[in-house]
């Protein structure tokens, strides 16, 4: 079985400061990892994914994530947060290489960026 854990319900950061949203995973095989963001009154939006290759993955809106196999983590990062980054962030894992849309989502982390 596979699962993801987002240990923080909420992350508070001042605008301009670095933002990190934590995610750890548990899978029986190769991990296929994703980050999605949910803005208020908007549908979930894809940010980035890790399938294979470089451990540092770059995505939309200046976000990146670092895959760490030894720590089974896939933390989302942004060097300088914006107020507009305030949203609900979900980490997700796919159990199968040929079914990347069938995702196991974490519970989500609310990011609040203050001016």
């Amino acid at each position, binding site marked *: 079985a596979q699962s993801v854990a987002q240990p923080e319900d909420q992350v508070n950061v001042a605008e301009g400061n670095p933002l990190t949203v934590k995610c750890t995973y548990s899978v029986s095989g190769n991990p*296929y990892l*994703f980050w*999605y963001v949910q803005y208020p*009154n*908007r*549908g*979930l*939006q*894809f940010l980035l*994914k890790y*399938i294979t290759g470089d451990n540092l993955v770059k995505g939309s809106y200046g976000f990146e994530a670092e895959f760490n196999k030894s720590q089974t983590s896939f933390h989302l990062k942004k060097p300088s947060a914006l107020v507009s980054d305030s949203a609900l962030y*979900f980490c*997700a894992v796919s159990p199968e*290489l*040929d*079914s*990347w*849309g*069938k*995702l*196991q*989502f*974490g*519970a*989500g982390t609310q990011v609040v960026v203050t001016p």
Partner: protein
Amino acid sequence: GAGVSQTPSNKVTEKGKYVELRCDPISGHTALYWYRQSLGQGPEFLIYFQGTGAADDSGLPNDRFFAVRPEGSVSTLKIQRTERGDSAMYLCASMASGGNTGELFFGEGSRLTVL
């Protein structure tokens, strides 16, 4: 259309009633997914269509839930004899090119409330 469209955006019904939720995916997307999101939780996979057929319905909670996609485009999620525990946001997502690009495009969801 430009994005994934879900109707109705809100549905209030009484316990025991029948409900249909509709999803119109992005034109040309062959893969379509249904998820359910309860308050404070991440989305949970329900069912996945590849074309007209249900490729994986392992997430459907019981036989009161059924989904169809007769022409390989629009999909309908059907819930019979609704229960209060069915209250949730129902999300639809589509993916291009057979489901292996990794990026799901989500609609804004249909919020179901069972009284």
